[in-house]
């Protein structure tokens, strides 16, 4: 009686072990990493495979850090990162495929039109807690941030906060969409999202007097910009090379622009 049960338990345990992938052909390329880049990479892959039906591109998420790791270990040919590489990750080849602005957003009814970067930093560190210090109504500021590990939060931390922590009392949401939704509903809130996702429900603040737009980013005047990176280990070859070339081509970059990102060319 005992043995069949044991066998069953063992079987159950082995089911959980992921099966290993066999050898890959030169014609397939795996792209993995940042979930901020993933939707765009999906679009590129779709169009690319229509044009080059003999090549396959599979896009996976996992986050910037996971993408960097996977690229280093060779688990994917192209890694995606929506943050700058750290010093110990610099051995990978970086290709900037697009840039994304970060917008500081408030409710459309908020009379405050702009702020300095240091004011934004003070708001998110919890030192500046009332809109009246920015020329707004005498209301407490509701600060909305992203969760730990998010690439957008990582970029905001690096570009605005530096070494200062985002204060603990900030409301935390797990996507650009929910941050926008909350800011759109709360007249006294402030948050940050990707510039391409700003719509009529919210208003982006001018930072140090500069509105976030493609022109101001290209001119280098708007400072909250993060690169979207493709990473390869050494010189890309075969299908990976072809895919990267396509992404950087006029057609690939036009797709970027349509989706609200800033093309690199």
């Amino acid at each position, binding site marked *: *009686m005992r043995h069949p049960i044991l066998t*069953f338990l063992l079987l159950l*345990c082995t089911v959980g072990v992921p099966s290993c992938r066999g050898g890959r052909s030169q014609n397939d390329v795996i792209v993995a990493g940042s*979930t901020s880049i993933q939707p765009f990479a999906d679009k590129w892959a779709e169009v690319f495979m229509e044009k080059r039906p003999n090549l396959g591109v599979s896009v996976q998420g996992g986050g910037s*850090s996971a993408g960097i790791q996977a690229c280093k270990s060779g688990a994917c040919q192209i890694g995606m990162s929506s943050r700058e590489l750290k010093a110990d990750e610099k051995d990978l080849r970086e290709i900037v495929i697009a840039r994304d602005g970060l917008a500081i957003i408030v409710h459309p009814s908020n009379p405050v039109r702009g702020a300095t970067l240091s004011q934004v930093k003070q708001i998110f560190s919890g030192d500046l807690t009332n809109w009246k210090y920015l020329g707004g109504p005498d209301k407490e500021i509701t600060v909305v941030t992203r969760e*730990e*590990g998010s690439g957008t939060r990582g970029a905001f931390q690096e570009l605005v906060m530096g070494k200062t922590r985002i204060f*603990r009392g900030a*409301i935390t949401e797990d996507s650009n969409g929910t941050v926008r939704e909350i800011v759109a509903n709360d007249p006294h809130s402030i948050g940050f999202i990707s510039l391409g996702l700003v719509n009529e429900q919210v208003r982006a603040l001018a930072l140090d007097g500069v509105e976030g737009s493609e022109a101001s980013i290209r001119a280098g005047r708007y400072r909250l910009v993060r690169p979207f990176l493709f990473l390869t280990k050494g010189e890309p070859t075969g299908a990976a090379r072809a895919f990267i070339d396509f992404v950087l081509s006029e057609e690939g970059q036009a797709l970027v622009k349509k989706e609200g990102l800033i093309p690199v060319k």
Partner: protein
Amino acid sequence: MNRLERKDRLVRLALLVVAFSAVSILAVITVFMFEQGTPIIFKYGVKSFLAGSDWYPSEKSFGLWPMIVGSVYVTFGAMVIGVPFGLACAIVLTEFASKSVRRIIKPVVELLAGIPSVVYGFMGVVILVPFIRETFGGPGLSVLAASIILGIMILPTIISISVDSLQALPPAYREGSVALGATKWQTVRMVLLPAARSGIIASIILGMGRAIGETMATIMIAGNAISVPRSLLAPVRTLTSNIALEMSYATGEHRQALFATGVILFIIIMALNTVANVTSARRRKAKG
């Protein structure tokens, strides 16, 4: 051994394997979670893990205190709202309601249990949160909002188990009490509630388990701030929200710390279930 006996044994064996598969899944989950979660607790120290108030995984500081307090606050708030309503509903259903009223209310309560939690969360975000923000101030996403929604969500648990334990009481209790001249309310208050006490306590504890474990609705309406809330109107993060919010990007120690959060939650829920089992076992024993 003849053919029939062999067949009988085979069926018994097959049923046993199926029955044990459920138990073994629990075993696999438990082992996996403890294996993944406990090393980091001991690496940084149990005390700093449980009592630390800084949760900044990117800076290697893992303090779960705000989340533990958050779970306790929200659950307690849900009890304050859910228990009186649930108990009142159970009493009405068993003692005061006519058959036709019962026939309407009972299925409605059961339907309440079938509504997915994301729907509760959505209602909270769309109706309750703006209401709280406009009436009481603050961001609206708060301990209060989470308590109210969770209080509603645990109603079916509390009602159905309390109804069962009230109905299980021998009719002689009611008859004897009425024969002594007690009114209906006196009967409920002095005879039935004390007699069904252990069942009612079990229903409350199971409701607590549901409230602590709820994730989707809490993420949507509690605001998920990592600080210990200073008022009912402040945002709060629970243990379950912490795992669900951050798991998608977590790697390395951050990921282990989320498993550790799961371990803490597991221990809390196990403790609650044990208490519930002990009280209901006592009830069965008392009944003989």
